[in-house]
């Protein structure tokens, strides 16, 4: 089972997937789908949710209330594009321009299928762009594929953290 952390301090050892999503409903749909994942339960993922870009960046850059946080960086970032305050595109740009963060895969999960959005995200260095589908079973399928691809078959840069 995947676990949703209340704060990064809750678990400082296990790998974390950061998810930046402002919509509670969308997050709940996503979360519900992850609970039904049909995967080899090799590892337990800790999910850490941020509701806006500013907080997520403070966490990633270890600023503000996170400046004393002594935990590993997340193994991947799941990112919604249109966010309150700092926009998803800006998050990608900042992460990919920050040397200690730039190896973290960013998977964009959004409703927008505008060509311009897609190109901008990849240009800024996003690693994957996926559309949020309409419909529960479609969402289930999307999450299933996402996890299989990124967390089962793909070797992530933080591979060492998974195996230890």
């Amino acid at each position, binding site marked *: 089972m995947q676990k949703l952390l209340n704060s990064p301090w809750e678990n400082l050892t296990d790998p974390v997937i950061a998810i930046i999503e402002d*919509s509670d*409903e*969308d997050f*709940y*749909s996503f979360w*519900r789908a992850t609970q039904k994942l049909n995967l080899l339960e090799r590892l337990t993922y800790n999910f850490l949710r941020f509701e806006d870009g500013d907080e997520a960046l403070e966490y990633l850059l270890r600023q503000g209330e996170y400046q004393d946080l002594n935990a590993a960086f997340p193994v991947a970032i799941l990112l919604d594009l*249109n966010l309150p305050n700092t926009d998803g595109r800006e998050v990608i740009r900042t992460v990919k321009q920050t040397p200690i963060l730039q190896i973290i895969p960013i998977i964009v999960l*959004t*409703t*927008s*299928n*505008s060509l311009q959005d897609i190109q901008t995200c990849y240009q800024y260095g996003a690693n994957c762009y996926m559309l*949020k589908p*309409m*419909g*529960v079973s479609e*969402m289930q399928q999307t999450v299933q594929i996402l996890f299989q691809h990124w967390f089962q078959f793909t070797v992530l840069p933080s591979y060492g953290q998974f195996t230890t």
Partner: protein
Amino acid sequence: MQIVNLPINNEEAVNLTNCDREPIHVPSSIQPHGVLLVLSEPDIKIMQVSENTFDLLGLTPAELLDRRLDEFISSEHIEAISSCLDRSFEHINPIPLKFYTPDDDSTPLSFNGIVHRAITGELVLELEPTVSIIKNDFFQFYHQIKNTLTKMQTALNLTELCNLIVQEIQAITGFDRVMIYRFNENGDGTVIAEAKQDEQEAFLGMHFPDTDIPKQAKHLYTLNWLRLIPDINYQAIGLATHQEEDSEPLPKLDMSYCSLRSVSPIHIEYLKNMEVAASMSVSLIQNQELWGLISCHHSTPKFIPYEIRTICEFLGQLMSTEIANKEANENLDYKLYLKTLQGQFVERLARTDDFVSELIADPEALLKLTGAAGVAVCQSNVDITLIGQTPTLEQIKTLLPWLLEHYNQDIFVTDSLSRLYPLAEEYTAIASGVLAMAISKIQHRYIIWFRPEMLQTVNWAGNPDKPKRLEEDGTITIFPRQSFELWQETVNGKSSPWLDCEIAGALELRQAIVDIVLRQAEDLANINLELERSNSELDSFAYIASHDLKEPLRGIHNYATFLLEDYSDMLQGDGAEKLNTLVRLTKRMESLIDSLLKFSRLGRQELQMYPIALDQLLKTVTELFAINPQWTNCQIRVPQSLPTVLGDRVLLEEVFINLISNAFKYNEQADKWVEVGWLESNSQDPNFVTIYIRDNGIGIREKHLDSVFRIFKRLHAPSKYGGGTGAGLTIVKKIIERHGGKIQVQSVYGQGSVFSFTLPIESNTSVIPEIATDITSNPHP
């Protein structure tokens, strides 16, 4: 060295084939009432002299030639002449001087000396004997002029001014007859004012043809404001000079400015025929052009001293400056009326966007604006509105291209169209006068006013056609006029003339219209700007619709589904049913949002235009239908090979998929089919082909045919025929229109429909190679 008499240009002139060619400015002879001297510079010696010196000075030419002038007149006058050699002589003329005969003790002779520099460069002194009764009294001159000037300024109009001038000139000079001629645009003169002796025949209102005063004479009138012929029966006096033997003959003296210049024999003949013995003319000049003449006649010889002539010349110049003022006051009431009309038009036009309908809204006013009887308002070469008496539509259509070549600064005015444009002879009664103006030559927008023929009687002073004789050598000899008796002519094919104020009214209207057109262009630019802005707003709206609206929708959809998943056992059948409906509705809303997004993007995205073989494209589409089990029992028929068109592959595929799936969807037959065909010839535009898609579907009621392409307009309930957003056909139409084509539908309700649309084909050969390279350079076009 010998004294030679310079040849007089005389008798040859009588035989001129055209008196316009007579060199009247170099007659080499003078009238005998004065002496002409040509002086050398700077020593002021007498180089040429008129041969009548003995009569007037008591010395022969031989006694004068090569003598210094200061031997005869006082040095102060010599100085006066020398001092203005390089300047205007006008302010010293006349120089009252005494002529002393050196060897004689008799009293010196009094003369008015008139100095000028000839056009050919010589210094010329003319001596006219002083008439003793005239005193050079400045105050007398001043009072005379002041009195006349006051009267001139209070004259109400041109007629009054002219009458005043002829009376004043007659009073000053004592001529039997003083007239004012006014020249029209053809050069014909009309007597517009006359002061005469009671017993004399009136010339007032008479026309004199252009040829009565030849061109070069008219030119001399503009150089020299006054011309006096004291006695037409004079004997012309030649000029004498000292000349080396065998030397080149002297160039002829240009006598344009000489007051003594000899008169053309033709003119003398003319005056004789008129029974005139002495004449004087004063020029009236407007804008450097001869506007008219003050012409004075006397039945016996009459000399007018220089001082009096100066007063007459001055009055002529004063009158010339007053003409413009008085003409402006001419027809003042009519001008004011036209101004009011113009103002009303400008005001009305300022408030409208459609100037044509505003113009023709008040046909009476449009006609009155230029005093016309008919008007044609042309919006294009074919869209022509006729008001009042005009030529037929066909005649006007023929006239338009001719007019196009005759506009002068977008306006063309004539009072005798048929003289310039022979085809108009058919309709001179209706349109002898034409006032045409071009608002836009490119868009063929014109307003053309017409005036009917006005048969008019012109009173000529004698037959205006000069008697002619064809000579044996083929030349024509023209004789001076013999008769000045009233000779009436009826003029055909001519309308009343267009007045300047009427033409000005038309021009003002044109300006108002041009302003409107310009304003419309500006408005259009603003609208475009606004459109661009709202387009980009629409774009961001589409984005918001796709993103922000879909998020809560997704929430509703998902949560309804979660309810069904998690609590289905607790829900009654009815509750589950309602939740299913909710889920279905959210799906539908999403597809509506998607369609809207797609439609709004379609208008802006760049089309990827390539040659597309429709056969190929349709094959792909057919395969797509074939693999979908939904479309079993459905058949796509292609009876003939389809052409290659120019288009965006993805979008054209969508067109076919949309139309074909519609055909299958709205179909109740057991075996459903569509037929895709095309028509090669498109009469409207050879660059387009027409494709049609025919089906055996349910058809569309005729009353709905217009609305099928409207966005979100559906003809059936969402539950019937598999639903649909109602945007498919709108998108199809937009795609076709983006390709420059048109789409239409024909249908027989219950039997099937035919959608036909046009698509561009490769017609422009210059485009083909470019596209061909594109294809080769891009393996996946």
